[in-house]
């Protein structure tokens, strides 16, 4: 790779243009994969409604008013009399425009309920990512620099302990410690950022922390492994021989090359974080997507269930793809067009 870098640096403009093409084609390839996967996962999501043996029209009308004629009329109004694939296509074309139907019971548009709840989960997830990168990154780097020392051993031990602890158990431990025993943070509830930054942070810090621990353990372990192997490379030794300051070598040369696998983990752990956000919502009674899903699953409010599942899986697909494509571009474009 060092050789590849030299050759590409010495190359003329032509390889650079070819590299740009490679980038474009890789993004295009990513989109080509994205669309069938989105179609498939939305089809699975939509089919859930058809799988249910519940009769939505009868449910909506209530037991007394559910005469066969009334049910047939409502089925027609809801489009439930059409073939499944036609229904799916109607639903999907509407969904692409941001219309996910209305709740069977409250008549509130599904997209509106989701838009109300999504910020809760996004706040938790984003803060959790920041916490995971900060703690996991620091722990992994320190462990790699002090390899074999007690810090390294402590990091390894804490990481393996943390990764066996389920997020919702960690969440409960945090509630007990911070909200019940020490009484420094609220045990539950949610205040949006409009209610003040500090109260907002106070309400999301514990759920985010619970959510971030496992990911930060993953990051620390992966970063330690790759950083250790990068620090042994000739070009690091070379940089030290040339007398560059260690901090600069670490940040500019080593971490930049070693962070790929850890970033991959971060991208791949996102679905786990989202699932964990439901856990956090339940433990901390936060009004998020998970609670919306639970409530609507209990009442068999199928449009809401489908909408939540569609939004969540789309988030997962898009974020995974963005992470993987970015990493491909970052780490493969430097070794020329061949990749």
């Amino acid at each position, binding site marked *: 790779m060092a050789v590849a870098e030299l050759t590409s640096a010495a190359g003329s403009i032509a390889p650079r243009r070819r590299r740009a093409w490679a980038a474009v084609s890789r993004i295009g390839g990513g989109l080509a994969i994205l669309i069938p996967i989105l179609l498939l996962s939305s089809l699975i999501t939509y089919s859930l409604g058809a799988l*249910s043996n519940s009769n939505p029209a009868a449910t909506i009308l209530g037991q007394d008013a559910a005469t066969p004629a009334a049910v047939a009329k409502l089925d027609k109004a809801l489009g439930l009399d059409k073939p499944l694939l036609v229904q799916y296509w109607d639903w999907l074309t509407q969904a692409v425009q941001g219309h996910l139907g209305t709740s069977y019971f409250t008549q509130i548009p599904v997209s509106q309920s989701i838009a109300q709840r999504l910020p809760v989960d996004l706040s938790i997830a984003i803060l959790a990512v920041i916490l995971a990168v900060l703690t996991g990154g620091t722990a992994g780097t320190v462990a790699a620099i002090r390899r074999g020392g007690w810090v390294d051993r402590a990091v390894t031990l804490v990481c393996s302990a943390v*990764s066996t602890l389920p997020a919702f158990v960690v969440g409960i431990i945090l509630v007990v410690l911070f909200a019940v025993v020490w009484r420094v943070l609220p045990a539950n509830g949610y205040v949006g950022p409009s209610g003040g930054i500090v109260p907002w942070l106070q309400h999301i810090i514990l759920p985010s922390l619970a959510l971030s621990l496992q990911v930060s353990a993953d990051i620390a372990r992966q970063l330690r492994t790759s950083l250790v192997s990068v620090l042994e490379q000739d070009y690091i030794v070379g940089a030290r021989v040339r007398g560059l300051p260690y901090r600069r070598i670490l940040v500019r040369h080593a971490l930049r090359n070693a962070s790929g696998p850890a970033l991959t983990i971060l991208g791949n752990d996102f679905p786990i974080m989202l*699932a964990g956000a439901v856990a956090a919502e339940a433990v901390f009674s936060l009004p998020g997507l998970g609670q919306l*899903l639970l409530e*609507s699953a209990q009442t068999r409010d199928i449009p809401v269930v489908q909408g939540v*599942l569609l939004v*969540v899986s789309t988030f997962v697909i898009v974020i*995974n793809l963005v992470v993987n494509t970015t990493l491909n571009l970052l780490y493969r474009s430097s070794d020329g067009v061949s990749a």
Partner: protein
Amino acid sequence: MSERDRRTLTGSGSVLRLPSARIAVVIVAIVVVLAIFGSALAPQNPLAINASALFQGPSPHHLLGTDYLGRDVLSRLMAGTRLSVLTAFEAVGIGLVLGGPLGIATVFLGKWFDFGANRVADALMTLPYIFFAVAVTAALGNGLVQAMFAVGILLAPGFFRVTRAATLEYARAQYVEAAELLGASKLHVIRVHVVRKVLPNLAVMTATATAGALLAVSFLTFLGIGVQPPAPTWGGVLSSDLDYLNLSPWAPFIPGVLIAITVGALNTLADAFRDRTGPGTLTVADPVIKTHSTLTLEAADGRQPAA
């Protein structure tokens, strides 16, 4: 017993040489025994309410204390084990049966089938377990069996990927080529040369998947999916403890630790199996979208930038 079988047996013996794996096996064995005999072994009736002994701490009479209705926590946890373990096995069984054979078959069924199966696996892997399980209960009815059926479907892509990757590796081996040249049928090759080799990788995946499934059951019961209130479950004990934190703040630690230890033991077993099968045998081929943490380490190892 063939030479190879004997080697596999001594091989699994070497897994047990690790002390951590031995402890893990003991823990898993205890949980299995509790799953079978838990309700019979429980020292007290898990449903018996005792208004004069609410929120008691551990004592000789109640080894793990009592809950908000004065019920014996130890008995409730023991009696609740069966449902958790059975439904976890249900999910893992569905995942194994759907994913394993398909992962082997897809290698031999041609490019288009392989492409299609992989895209379906990709699509399934984008659905988070808990969300999907809860959504399925909306469609199929509020029951733990239905919810864990959904989890099983989502475990299938993992089994599929692992078997497919291993099969790809073994199906291209020279001895397979030699066997085919000698006139061995495809079924013979699969049976003799592929299935046996894939088994260790499947063992790793099964242990990991069981850990994931148990976690999912605990969490689903914590959310109150599919269980009527007086019936004891691990997650149910945890969630009722959470409602009375001010009265007994340390109560949730008991079911929490139980869940964590069981899941941890299964993960340790998976690691022990993985160490034995050796790194590199469990790589994910063609990882377009990877979403499950069990696979990410291997996948990430494979793509370490060369500097």
